[in-house]
C-alpha cells in the first residue's frame, strides 16, 4: 500500500474498509493481524496529515512581469503568521 499517494479522505475510507473487514468473524488471526497493521499505518498517516505544522499564508506580488509570493500579514495579529 503506497500511503503517501493517498488523500486524507482515501486513507480514511480505506481505514473504514479495514474496520469492516475485521468485523467479519471468518477472518483468520494472521489476516486480522495484517489488517490491524495496515489500519495502524493508515491511522498514523492520517494523524500525521492533521499534525502537519501550521500552514503558510502567502500573497502573490506581481512586479515588472515577475510573480513572487510574500508572507501575508493579517491585520491585528503578529507581524508574521
Amino acid at each position: 500500500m503506497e500511503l503517501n499517494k493517498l488523500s486524507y479522505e482515501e486513507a480514511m475510507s480505506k481505514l473504514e474498509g479495514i474496520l469492516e473487514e475485521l468485523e467479519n468473524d471468518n477472518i483468520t488471526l494472521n489476516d486480522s493481524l495484517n489488517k490491524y497493521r495496515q489500519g495502524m499505518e493508515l491511522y498514523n498517516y492520517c494523524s500525521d496529515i492533521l499534525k502537519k505544522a501550521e500552514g503558510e499564508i502567502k500573497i502573490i506580488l506581481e512586479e515588472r512581469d515577475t510573480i513572487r509570493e510574500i508572507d501575508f500579514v493579517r491585520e491585528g495579529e503578529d507581524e508574521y503568521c
Partner: protein
Amino acid sequence: MKPLKVYEVNNYIKRIISGDMVLSNLKIEGEISNFKHHYSGHMYFSLKDDRSKIKCVMFRADNEQLHIKLEEGMKIIASGYVSVYDRDGDYQFYIRSIEEKGVGDLYKAFEELKKKLQKEGLFEESRKKKIPYLSKKIGVVTSSTGAAIRDIVSIIKRRYPPCDILIYPTLVQGTNAPMELCQGLKYLDDRLDIDLIIMGRGGGSFEELFAFNDEKLARTISNLKTPIISAVGHETDFTISDFVSDLRAPTPSAAAELAVPDISYLYNNLNNKYDILSNFILKKLHTYKNDLNMAERALRYNDPSINIRDKKLDIDNLYKELNYSVEKILSKEIKRLILLENRLKILDPNQFLDKGYGILYNSRHLKVKSIDELKVDEELHILHKEGTIKTVIVEINKGGLQDGTK
C-alpha cells in the same frame, strides 16, 4: 423700442418655457456632478454627459421620497420639468423623481446572460466538481484589503490550521475587476499545488457586485480544472459567478467553512477509528488466547501417556483377575482331590486287612467275588495283614453268615 427690465425678460422666457409641451414634462439621463445637499434640505447639482450639462434642483419634499442615496458621479434618469429661476436668469431642471440609470439595464443584462449560460448548460449540476474533503493548499482570489480576505483566512486557520493559503489579490469592483479576477483564477488553476479556489468579495450594491456577472469571468470559471467556491456579497446576493461555480457560499466566511472541515471533528473521528481498531485487535487476541488455553487443556486431557497409564492399570487388573481365576480353579481341584483321596481311602483294601479281615483269591490269583465260582478241594489263597495263607476248601455252604453258624 422700449427697453425691457431684466426681470421682465426672464419672466417672459419663463412663460415661454413653461408653456412648452416637451420641457414641462421630461426625463433626462446623465451623471451627477457638483452635488450639494443644502442645509435647507434641497439638493443642487448638475447632470452631465460627455458633451454638455444642465443645472438641477430637487426640493426637500421630493428628495425625501428617494430610495437611493445620490452621489457624485452616479448615473441617473431624472423626471421633472425645465423652468427658469427668475433671480439669476438660469434655466434649471426641477427634478421630481429619480431612477438609478443603468440598474435596470444591469438587471436586464444579468438576466439575459443568466438565461444564455443556462441554455448552454454552464450551470448544470453534472459540470460541478466535487470540493476536496481536505485541501492542502487553497487559493483565494479577492481584494487584499477588506473584511472578506480577513474572514476567509482566519476561519480557514481556525478550522484547519495545516492548510496553506495563497492569495491572489485583485480588484473586486469596477470595469477592470473581471479581467483581474480571470487572471487570478487562471494563475491559480495553472499551478499544480492548489486544491481549491475561493473567489469572492464582501457585500455591496448590485452595481458593486456586477464584476461577478461578467460573461468572460463566467466562462473562465467554467473552464477551471480546480474546484471553486464562489462567495459574493451576502446571503441574498446572487451573481453569475455563483451559478457557474462548483459551490456557492452565501458569504466569504461561509466559503471558508465549506472549504475545510473542523480539525477537532477530524481528530475525534480518527481517534474513534483508532479505538475501534485497537479494541478489536485486543479482543481478537484475547479470544485467540482463550481458545489456545482451551486447546491446551484439551490436549493435556487427551495426553497419550495418560492413556498408557490407564492401559497399564487395565493390564494389572487383568493379571489380578487371571491370578484369581487360576487360584479359584486350583483350590477347587485341590478340594476335589482331597475328596477323591478320601474316597480312595475308604476303598483301600488295607483298611480291611488292618481290621483283621482277609481277602480270598482263587488258584489263578483272582479275587473271589462269588461263592458260586468255588468248588470243594479247590485251592484258595488268603491274603492277611501279616502274610498269605494257602488253604483247601473243605465245605461250601451257601447262605448268610447266620445260616453258616446254624
